[in-house]
């Protein structure tokens, strides 16, 4: 394993993406995701041998469209943005899913609605997980909780995007983007030949031509196409659930949290255990597909969902369990992250309830 380096989340993630063979980056500056674009721009300037290509686009609308074009050519491509830019990118999210274009999109969440703040938040859960664009589509949504996991998952994100020919969202937040911690940067990965991908635009010559289209030809054809996509989403749901559970077995109360909030809950869990409260935690890593079964298996224990939102993931938790009254919620809005002590008080309150 490579020596651990002390790196910022955005920069480490960008480096991991470069090492995953993503040489094409398109972005628009927005806090707290800008450092990904800046890191790529520096890499393009300083590492000519890697043939990195970065375009600072005029809008996120354009950046996402550039990603779509570049990824459609069979090459790994990505963008990184925050909520306001992710909103603009939704037309492309819907389009890329419909057109089966594999791409990776990072949304580093900050509190909305509107321009909001540039602090951490998790209010883009619905937009990312439920599909913020038009039509019936799904994208894999991965939510790391450490810089190490940001690096490991973004490398996997490219593989998953190609496996399912579908965009993958990396849902992080301002804390993970801006904080620094020690990380063992993953190495360079094997990258498939762009021409080996079935529908990559390459110039067909006399062979069968390749088409990236999302318009239908009547209700029957478009219905069948949609059914095919749904079949694929079903496979994703079956095969790509990711989560970690911590001390759930003997727990009286199980927290559910993701991303930086899960880091806080993990510390709160240890503090609770020290006080003799049997607390556990389930941390969804894939937010779509959601680890429904793991949460259902909690049974009749009390569940405390913690989010930096007014309560978004909590709906998926409620859909996963038999008794919704067992599900408690603690959220914070505006950019302040609850401390482990705050969560511990909430645990005590729920246990007493």
């Amino acid at each position, binding site marked *: 394993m490579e020596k651990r380096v002390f790196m910022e989340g955005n920069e480490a993630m960008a480096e991991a993406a470069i090492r995953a063979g993503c040489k*094409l980056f*398109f972005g628009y500056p927005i806090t707290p995701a800008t450092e990904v674009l800046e890191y790529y721009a520096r890499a393009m300037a300083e590492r000519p041998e890697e043939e990195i*290509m970065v*375009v600072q*686009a*005029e*809008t996120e*609308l*354009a*950046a996402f*469209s*550039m*990603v*779509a*074009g*570049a*990824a*459609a*050519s*069979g*090459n790994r*491509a990505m963008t990184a943005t925050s909520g306001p830019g992710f909103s603009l990118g939704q*037309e*492309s999210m819907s*389009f890329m899913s419909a057109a089966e274009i594999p791409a990776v999109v990072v949304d580093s969440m900050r509190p909305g609605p509107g321009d909001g703040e540039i602090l951490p938040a998790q209010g883009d859960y619905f937009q990312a997980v439920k599909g913020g664009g038009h039509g019936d589509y799904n994208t894999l949504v991965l939510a790391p909780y450490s810089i190490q996991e940001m690096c490991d998952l973004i490398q996997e994100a490219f593989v998953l995007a190609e496996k399912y020919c579908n965009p993958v969202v990396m849902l992080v937040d301002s804390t993970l983007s801006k904080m620094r911690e020690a990380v063992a940067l993953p190495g360079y990965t094997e990258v498939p030949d*762009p021409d080996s991908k079935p529908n990559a*635009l*390459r*110039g*067909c*010559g*006399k062979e069968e*031509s*390749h*088409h*990236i*289209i*999302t*318009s239908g030809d009547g209700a029957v054809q478009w219905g069948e196409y949609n059914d095919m996509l749904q079949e694929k989403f079903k496979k994703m749901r079956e095969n790509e659930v990711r989560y970690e559970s911590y001390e759930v077995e003997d727990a009286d109360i199980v927290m559910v949290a993701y991303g930086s909030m899960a880091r806080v809950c993990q510390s709160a869990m240890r503090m609770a255990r020290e006080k003799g409260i049997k607390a556990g935690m389930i941390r969804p890593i894939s937010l779509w597909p959601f680890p429904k079964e793991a949460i259902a298996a909690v049974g009749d224990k009390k569940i405390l969902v913690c989010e930096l939102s007014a309560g978004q993931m909590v709906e998926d938790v409620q859909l996963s369990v038999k008794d919704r009254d067992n599900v408690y919620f603690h959220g914070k809005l505006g950019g302040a992250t609850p401390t482990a002590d705050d969560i511990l008080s909430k645990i005590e309150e729920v246990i007493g309830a």
Partner: protein
Amino acid sequence: MKTVYEKPAVFKEAVTNYCAGCGHGIVSKLIAELIDEMDLQEKGIMVWPVGCSVLSDRYFKMDTFVAMHGRAPATATGIKRARPDKLVMVYQGDGDLVSEGMAEIMHAAIRGEKLSIVFINNAIFGMTGGQMAATTLIGQTASTAPLGRKTETSGYPMRMAETLATMPGVSYSARCTINTPARIRECKKMIKKIYEMQMSDQHGLCFLEILSPCPTGWNTTPVNALDWIDEKMVETYPLGLFKDEESE
């Protein structure tokens, strides 16, 4: 027996969805002829817009990306940056390029993207059924301008070719039309020119605006539509070459 003209080989069998007398058909045919003559099937990747030409993937045996509305220049940027050795052939209408995608075309021009853009100006929204476009002439009626376009409420027709010609990132900008056999031949030469310029790898954005008949959108017959271009359109949209880096 000698063949004077046969349908270009790159065309598929599909009957186009274009109305009778539609200029899209003529320009598509010219592009198809050039693909055959210049042997571009392997070199070229086509980017089509949303608009009447949205179904063009059915007409061409070419690698094709039908972009989101207005985003063709951005999508084409992504393709060209990923595969710089390819000829990226962009085609857009006026709803796509001037309205929905104004930012994308202007910024592709600002960046001097190595793209060839064919722009069909028919002064109307065709696909959605005859609504006013940014290119609609003053006084011209449309379903959303039943008394004709009024400058007080809807402003002025946008001259893309002239505007782009002022930009350093643009290497070629011209406006032509296709309402006579001679002009169709001229138009083909100009399309060829913008493809060759991109392939030379020496130039930035190359732009060709084509005034194109839309008999349905103009509520007239195909033959009268050809006359309308001379009678009405060229006054607002003068034909000509506004910039050519190669001849400077």
